[in-house]
């Protein structure tokens, strides 16, 4: 299999503060991300999913074992620039990711640093801003944007660098439903149309139903790994990891216990509605 990211047998510990005892998060942990795939990573707060995102582009380094991006180990200090260009990271809090005062300039910041010709930068910024639905705001001041708008600008900034892989750490946690939908559809489009590998870290279950693969984390371990259908059919395991299921899955599970016949593959409200209607047909 062609993997863009390979996490091989890593250990990782951290301290909550200086002089505090080490807390072991990952022990002999491995995970591969296939090129071109859309992988969702879900888990409760403190399950290690954010740490994982930072290990994926060398922001954090493993205590032992290795992480490879495009075959380059994150331990190779002089290749870190290549790694960051290949794997772009989008964080939860947009306020920490905006660097300039005008939207257009903010998105241009990344490609400028890559030494891209000005004409192409303009082109990239336009595409990126349109992808996240922020083109109309290109001349606005970044300080006057709402949280959701800032986040979409931050994502555009990563898109403009045209990375091969984007890792998004709870990118929609601070967005409203519409903003969330826009960001997700932009991310999906990049994956489907441009073949960019996407790793989406989230705790919104509704966001992962379209992923190729869902990895469920609990206290630094992978407890489930499979297609959305496979993962969501394991309601009990998900609940034991302090996660909730999409409403559709709850409805499906409860109805099936009472003699309804809704297949496991049903994940969206639309499909579920159809099957419920069928069971009432004469």
């Amino acid at each position, binding site marked *: 299999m062609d993997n863009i990211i390979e996490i091989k047998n890593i250990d990782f510990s951290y301290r*909550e*503060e200086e002089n505090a005892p080490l807390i072991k998060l990952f022990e002999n942990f491995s995970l591969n991300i296939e090129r071109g795939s859309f992988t969702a990573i879900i888990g*409760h*707060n*403190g399950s290690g999913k954010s740490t994982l995102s930072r290990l994926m582009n060398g922001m954090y380094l493993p205590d032992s074992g290795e992480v490879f991006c495009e075959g380059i180990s994150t331990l190779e200090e002089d290749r870190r620039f290549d790694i960051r260009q290949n794997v772009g990271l989008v964080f*939860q809090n947009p306020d920490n990711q905006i660097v300039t005062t005008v939207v257009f300039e903010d998105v241009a910041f990344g490609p400028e640093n890559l030494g891209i010709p000005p004409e192409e930068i303009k082109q990239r910024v336009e595409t990126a801003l349109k992808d996240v639905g922020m083109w109309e705001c290109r001349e606005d001041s970044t300080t*006057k944007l*709402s*949280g*959701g*708008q800032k986040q979409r600008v931050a994502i555009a900034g990563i898109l403009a660098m045209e990375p091969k892989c984007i890792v998004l750490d*709870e990118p929609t*946690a*601070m*967005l*409203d*439903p*519409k*903003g969330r*939908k826009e960001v997700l559809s932009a991310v999906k489009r990049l994956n489907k149309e441009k073949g960019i590998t996407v790793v989406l870290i989230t*705790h919104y279950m*509704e966001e992962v139903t379209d992923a190729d693969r869902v990895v469920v984390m609990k206290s630094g371990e992978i407890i489930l790994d499979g297609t959305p259908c496979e993962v969501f059919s394991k309601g009990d395991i998900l609940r034991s990891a*302090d*996660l*909730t299921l*999409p*409403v*559709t899955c*709850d*409805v499906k599970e*409860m*109805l099936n216990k*009472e*003699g*309804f016949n809704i297949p496991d593959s049903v994940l969206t*409200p*639309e499909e*579920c*509605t159809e099957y*419920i*209607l069928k*069971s*009432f*047909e*004469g």
Partner: protein
Amino acid sequence: MALLEAQKLEYIYSQKTPFVKQAVKGVDFCVEKGEIVGIIGHTGSGKSTLVQMLNGLLKPTSGSVTLNGEDIFANKKSLHDARFKIGLVFQYPEYQLFDETVYKDISFGPSNMGLEKDEIDRRVISASKLVGLPPHLLNKSPFDLSGGEKRRAAIAGVVAMEPEILILDEPTAGLDPKGRQRILDMIVELNKTTNTSVVIVSHNMEDIAKLCNKVLVLKGGEAVAFDTPEKIFAETDIVEQSGLILPALTKMLISLKNKGLPVNIANFSVNDAVKELIRLKKEGYKLDA
């Protein structure tokens, strides 16, 4: 008379500059004693500006806010009182924790109210109990708490002022499902045990539908609807034209109803909705082909 009443509220940012922007336009709404009122709206619809006017942090460009019939902006004293009686919990309130210990942080508000030491102590203990912070955390630095605990400590700081109305701006944003549920349970508990009115701003339609007695829908700074969640979420158009998304369950129930199944679309909990479907099935209900 309503406990809190907003009349023809307007707010214009950066007036008399090229950046002039009207964030809130002619909003009327009210909160009765003991009610939970939800405010929903797309990003930039004026939710946060509105709640900051409700407790006197922002002075409206025009219009009035009255608490028990008295204008909170009438004079310095009324404004001062309003800030204690109307408690506002900002978005991401944990960024505002500042003191050495959780106890001191929670006691900051009550201390500023000039209360006796015993009374402050009672309030800190009762507020932290209500938000679910175990006593051993009170002597810790707020920065040693987990994200969910920090959020609850910050909310406790406002709860300890024992306001008549508690306003929370996106109290569950950024929390995991368990953390979210704890905050919601806490809000219901506070409302039930103390009859405190609550105003909650949220993007989570499921939570709003389940919790609130009334819902205010904002769009472009204007109030497009103010009614019970049953009525609001039945008006699919109002919700969707305001850039909002119906709760997934409501969406399912609406399309089942449109196809002829006699379900109650005001069932906001999965349990109730499923029970109804099972009952219909057992009664042998059939749809015409």
